[in-house]
């Protein structure tokens, strides 16, 4: 109740918000305009200005020192103005993006985007000149989505570079980009990219509606956006695909999905997604189809191993030892002999230890991370068995679980399913196989209920659509996958027409 009250309460505008959005008319007096701009930035010292004479009048060029390309300002703006001295500004400066405005707040926004403002005495026209300095790292392969063969490009922190990477892949005027500015304080630019005419207009409408309704101070990472727009925040499953790969993004756009890309972050959020999207990797399509299918199947298998294996083992040694065949049971039993903890505790300890190791290794520089791996994996693993704290078999089980959880191409999904293993383990320790089975049933019910932007999350299994299995847990040759998957509800399903006609014609001869 209280929350709802707070939400409906009228929002008072805090003083630190970016700037007034309302139109402010520029005055004729140069001095007045100058004061206005300087006040807007609270005399911040990186706001520079340069006095110039233009058409015989006194003029001022404002720019944010750190945002603009100094060379550009000197060579393409100041030098032409100084050498010409008069004329029409548009014809003099060597800048592609010139805007004229009489709105000071628009000019201030422009300064923040790396534009220069040029204004002259006795004139209320402000010129916005593009001089943005695209500082940023070069295009590299994303570290957490490496592939063996294929494109090694990855998104970077610059939105325009990222859009360039997409445009490069889809040379089509229908590739539409819509900008939305989010975050009242951070003022972050977000782009929604989709293929006009293919992507379901209702989807775009829904995405825009959800993005527009974000009313928050700042958007720091795509995680913020995800939290705001996803259907069910309490679900353990990610409902938008986070990727740093332009090729993956482009492929998804062509399947009729929308990508949300944020300024300052090298990743794209793809919606809507299904469970199986997280198990696809561009690698599948770089290999021949049966190899791709095999690896796809291995990944799906890894899902089952990750969530069920530790729980299964706990259930077996706690409740159902009859299940273990004769030749194995005495080995397992002897490894358990001196272990003081019940199996559930053993598993929990090892899993937590593993998460600690993983977390520690991420932050550290590579050489130290390797040391941690050796100390953690080998030394502790060995010592823990020697000291009879944990059984040999449990170490194997936990290790296999961890390895298979890392198989998933998507980092969020990998963590999500590893965490899902815990409730199943508790279920297994309470009611053996039946505890596990109930856990799985609840997960399945949840998957059937879950929707991502109006499309069922567990498609093509629930609802069932056998046609779409061609790219779910196997991948058939692309010429068999001649229809787009239905889950994103694209406007046209057909995507391939008789590409192997030569074969039939050849046979006829």
């Amino acid at each position, binding site marked *: 109740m209280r929350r709802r009250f707070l939400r409906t309460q009228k929002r008072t505008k805090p003083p630190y918000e970016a700037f007034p959005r309302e139109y402010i008319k520029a005055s004729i007096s140069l001095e007045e305009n100058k004061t206005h701009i300087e006040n807007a930035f609270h005399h911040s010292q990186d706001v520079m200005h340069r006095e110039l004479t233009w058409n015989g009048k006194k003029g001022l060029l404002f720019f944010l020192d750190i945002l603009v390309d100094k060379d550009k300002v000197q060579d393409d703006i100041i030098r032409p103005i100084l050498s010409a001295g008069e004329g029409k500004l548009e014809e003099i400066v060597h800048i592609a993006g010139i805007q004229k405005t009489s709105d000071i707040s628009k000019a201030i926004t422009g300064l923040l985007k790396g534009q220069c403002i040029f204004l002259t005495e006795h004139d209320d026209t402000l010129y916005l000149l593009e001089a943005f300095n695209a500082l940023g790292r070069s295009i590299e392969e994303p570290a957490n989505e490496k592939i063996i063969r294929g494109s090694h490009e990855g998104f970077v922190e610059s939105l325009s570079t990222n859009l360039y990477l997409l445009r490069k892949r889809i040379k089509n005027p229908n590739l539409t980009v819509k900008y939305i500015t989010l975050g009242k304080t951070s003022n972050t630019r977000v782009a929604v990219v989709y293929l006009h005419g293919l992507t379901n207009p209702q989807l775009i409408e829904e995405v825009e509606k959800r993005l527009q309704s974000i009313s928050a101070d700042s958007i720091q990472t795509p995680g913020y956006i995800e939290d705001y727009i996803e259907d069910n925040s309490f679900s353990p499953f990610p409902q938008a695909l986070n990727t740093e790969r332009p090729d993956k993004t482009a492929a998804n756009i062509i399947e009729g999905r929308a990508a949300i890309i944020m300024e300052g972050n090298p990743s794209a959020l793809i919606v809507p997604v299904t469970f199986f999207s997280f198990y696809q990797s561009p690698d599948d399509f770089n290999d021949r189809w049966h190899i791709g299918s095999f690896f796809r199947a291995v990944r799906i298998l890894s899902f089952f191993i990750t969530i069920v294996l530790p729980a299964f083992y706990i259930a077996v040694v706690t*409740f159902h030892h009859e299940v273990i065949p004769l030749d194995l049971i005495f080995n397992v039993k002897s490894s358990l*002999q001196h272990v003081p903890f019940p199996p559930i505790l053993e598993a929990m300890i090892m899993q937590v230890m593993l998460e600690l190791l993983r977390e520690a290794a991420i932050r550290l520089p590579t050489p130290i991370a390797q040391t941690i791996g050796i100390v953690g994996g080998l030394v502790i693993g060995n010592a823990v068995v020697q000291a009879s704290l944990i059984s040999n078999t449990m170490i194997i089980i936990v290790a296999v679980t961890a390895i298979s959880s890392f198989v998933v191409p998507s980092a969020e999904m990998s963590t999500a399913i590893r965490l899902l293993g815990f409730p199943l383990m*508790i279920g297994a320790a*309470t009611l053996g196989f039946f505890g596990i089975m109930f856990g799985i049933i609840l997960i399945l019910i949840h998957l059937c209920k879950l929707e991502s932007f109006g499309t069922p999350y567990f498609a093509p299994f629930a609802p069932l659509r056998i046609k779409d299995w061609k790219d779910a847990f196997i991948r058939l040759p692309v010429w068999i996958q001649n229809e787009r998957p239905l889950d994103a509800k694209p406007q046209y399903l057909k995507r391939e027409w008789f590409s192997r006609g030569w074969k039939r014609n050849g046979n006829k001869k």
Partner: protein
Amino acid sequence: MKRLLLLLIAVCTLSITTGCWDRQLLKNTRLVYGVSLDKVQNNHLLTTVSIHSSISSRGGPSSPTNDIVSSRGDTVHETRRNIERKISGPFSASKTQFVLLGNELAKDNIYGLLDIFYRDPRSQLGARVAVVDGRAEDIIKLKTKEETLIDEYIWQLIKTEEQNTAIPASTIQTICSNMFDSGHDFALPQLRISPGKKRVELAGTALFHGKQFSGITLSPSDSTLLLLLADQKKKFAHFTKKVKNSKKETPFDYVTFNAKKAKVRMNIDTNQTPLKVSIHLNIKAVINEYPSDRINRKGREKALGKKLTAQLTEQANALMTKLQKANCDYFGIGRELMAYHPDTWKKLRWETAYRNIRLEPKVNVDIVGYGIID
């Protein structure tokens, strides 16, 4: 928020109740590998179990050991309880691989003895059952045999002999079907301690009628033939027959062959009284050992085949007499009658009629191979 709280409560209660109720930690259970049952004075039962475990020395390789415990009682379960009082952890019969029944006990109703195996959901229905000539307990009490634990020893012995078609592959479950079926009897392997040498050996096959041991045991060779006639051949089926009559008895008079393929056809002639049942067995034999001569000579193969045919048919006839004496309808002739000749079946009292029917076996041996030399 409310949902999250509910979830939290659910997880907490689950964690608290963890390990209540039916928990049976593998770590603590004492796994029984083999059981023997005997009758002792005052109709008490004596159960002897071999509890198998492997002791590991802290991370090192483990070595298997076994612990032999026995106890008496009035029911099998009571004896188990009594045994549980003598051991360190809960008793678990879920991995029992074989049940040995003493001779005396087997002559009673064995279903009653095995009842607990059928009734208990945790029991192992795939366990083998065998009769022991003498007291079953004595075999388990051998404890180890040639570096092998007695339980593994017996288990391997039974499994190997099943593959050699020397004993029927009967588990607790398969004999149950037969015990309830009035038109089908079964047989169990019989073990004994070889005289003097303190070694376990296979004595043959004990013939059962209904739920009781008839007291008649077939020799291993007879059992192989029985199994072939009942179409239960496994991997190998070896026979050794005398095929020459030298003046002096030498081992070179014999031939050993393996029935590579065996086809059986059973025919019931209901028009005749007593009922005539003919069983035709066609064996494709491969000679394993024929020390006296070469085989690959014109007509030799055929002649040898004929000799074997005659000998095996004779053996089969003797076998039938034994079966009828034991009243053991091993071929399921009664079941056959019920299924295909229900009218005849209704007229007969199988309990007594089986002994009087005419069983006519006919064995034919064709030699199809003789190893890698002539």
